[in-house]
């Protein structure tokens, strides 16, 4: 029986994209509504997928200054002639740009690999820093960077810190992130710090603070298991934090009499880490990359480690808290601001560490602009933070790759597909 308020198929016209008409599916909303009633939200996902599938098939076209180029054409060469007949849409300002793209010397244009937004032609300014705000589940910067042929970037998940060579934290960080660098084609690049978009330390601090209610029994360990999302990044930062603590143990052990005394917080962390070594070291260092902490911790074998983990985190956080107030990557006003913030409760510390991250982050972005970095990839929320805080470096431009700008690229690509 038909629902009298359900949109009739006849009410739905062709869905046009980029101002041009493409394939019509008058039953899209009907299908979506029908699926919704069966399976809730997934129906809408299918609806969106369906509408995506109804977009025009991208034709084999090259455009120069908005005009399609047909092969054979004297402007096309051995490389670009096949482009007029392959499966992608390419939209150049001029012949020189097309030839540069063919020669692999551009870093501002290309087709996204997808999904999502497969084959979409993207274009960014040829000069200056371009800040791309992404949704980590949609069009990610690791898709965009290879598509436009750039390795001159910073990316939010990568560390901007100078991690000491041979240190435990350096080794742990690299273990966790090697695949990420490889995805950008820079796995073997020297000085990977230049790709760093943020400091590790505020994230370590935030993550370990986040784990306290799980370690002290306030929150159910099931929240850290597969199925939830927080178990994966917290496991990653637990491993990195433990490695950092082992570096502190070595630092304390290696201190000479003539050297300045280490802080009480560091000495305590070294003592606690040493005391927990037998219980925690093999287990933490054996946790798999991209695993969920709850999957192993919430077991008969490992739940007894909870007091040990809590002791470790309680010794670690004062060291990181002190580091926030003395971070050499910040200016003195920022350090003072952080020092004056309360840190007694988990909520206090969460606010403090989040601010620490943001303050540090602004310096990294500014530094990237000064270094001539071409792209800074980050979550859209963090790009919004830069905009709201008037911290977008002069000459840099922002691109919302979750909304308006991505839609603009998609619309332009679809529009070109309709041109003769």
């Amino acid at each position, binding site marked *: 029986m038909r*629902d009298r*308020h*359900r*949109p*009739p198929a006849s009410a739905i*016209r*062709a869905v046009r*994209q980029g*101002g041009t008409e493409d394939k019509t599916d008058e039953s*899209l*909303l*009907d299908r*979506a*509504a*029908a699926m*919704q*009633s*069966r*399976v*809730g*939200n*997934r129906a*809408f*996902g299918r*609806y*969106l997928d369906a*509408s995506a599938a109804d977009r025009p098939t991208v034709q084999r076209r090259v455009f120069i200054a908005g005009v399609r180029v047909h092969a054979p054409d004297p402007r096309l060469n051995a490389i670009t002639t096949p482009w007029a007949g392959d499966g992608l849409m390419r939209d150049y300002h001029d012949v020189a740009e097309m030839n540069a793209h063919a020669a692999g010397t551009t870093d501002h244009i290309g087709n996204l690999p997808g999904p999502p937004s497969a084959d979409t032609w993207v274009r960014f300014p040829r000069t200056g820093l371009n800040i791309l705000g992404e*949704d*980590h*589940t*949609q069009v990610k910067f690791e898709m965009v960077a290879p598509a436009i042929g750039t390795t001159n970037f910073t990316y*939010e*998940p990568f560390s901007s810190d100078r991690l000491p060579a041979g240190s435990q934290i350096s080794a742990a960080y690299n273990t966790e992130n090697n695949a990420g660098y490889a995805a950008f084609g820079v796995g073997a690049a020297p000085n990977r710090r230049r790709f760093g978009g*943020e400091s590790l330390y505020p994230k370590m601090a935030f993550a370990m603070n*986040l784990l306290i209610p799980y370690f002290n029994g306030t*929150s159910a360990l*099931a*929240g*850290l*298991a597969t*199925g*939830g*999302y*927080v178990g*994966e*990044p*917290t496991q*990653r930062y637990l491993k990195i934090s433990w490695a950092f603590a082992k570096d502190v143990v070595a630092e304390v052990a290696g201190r000479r009499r003539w050297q300045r005394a280490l802080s009480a917080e560091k000495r305590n962390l070294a003592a606690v880490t040493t005391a927990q070594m037998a219980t925690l070291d093999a287990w933490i260092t054996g946790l798999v990359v991209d695993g969920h902490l709850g999957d192993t911790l919430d077991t008969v074998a490992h739940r007894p480690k909870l007091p040990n983990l809590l002791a470790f985190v309680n010794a670690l956080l004062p060291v990181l808290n002190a580091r926030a107030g003395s971070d050499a990557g910040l200016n003195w006003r920022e350090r003072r601001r952080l020092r004056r913030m309360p840190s007694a409760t988990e909520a206090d510390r*969460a606010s403090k560490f*989040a*601010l620490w991250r943001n303050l540090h982050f602004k310096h990294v972005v500014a530094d990237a602009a000064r270094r001539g970095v071409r792209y800074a990839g980050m*979550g*859209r*929320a*963090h790009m919004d*933070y830069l905009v709201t805080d008037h911290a977008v470096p002069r000459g840099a431009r922002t691109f919302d790759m*979750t*909304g*308006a700008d991505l*839609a603009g690229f998609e619309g332009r690509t679809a529009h070109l597909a309709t041109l003769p």
Partner: protein
Amino acid sequence: MTGLNVRVRLLRTRIAPGAPVLTTRLTIWWRGTRFRIHDESGRAYADLAADVSEPRGFGRTPRTMEEFMDAATAVPDRGRTDLYGDLDEPVGLVDEPRARPWEVPVARIAPIAAQVLAGDLDGQVPGGRETVLGRECVEYLGVLEGNEGGRAFRSEVRRLVSGPYVLLREVVDLDGGLLRLRAEAASLDEGAVTASDVDPPG
């Protein structure tokens, strides 16, 4: 479709381990083929789209440590987001805080507005009955199943349907991940929508 005239205020609460409870308020207007979606929290288009397209049914949920930190950082008075569309037109409008309005295919935003409509219930097995907002509702249960990042998931979806409207949608993770979503109609007014309610600015 011409008879559709309704304004629904939705209260949406998402619970995810490690993230603050996220409460958002949406108002959805339908007037014939025209609709408008208003998000009081100023969430971005992508987040509103994820409300109805995220495969597990929980909407956009923090996954990375960066996102957990973003989620914990309150953004004061971010503004409001409005989406406008007409099923008889090819494109709609997205009006987000601190940005110029931009066009979007209506097909992408219509499902966001349609989340308050029950759709075709043929073949559905009705369950119990409850009263919401003074309306008698019928319960429908469904399960979302799939694979995300190589891991299988299952979410149970419970909907309370009254006539053409969905007055409550609850999503629960069946695999122990402790994620929850509850989207409930805080008010529903039929016949109250005027043309100005669904007119885009300008």
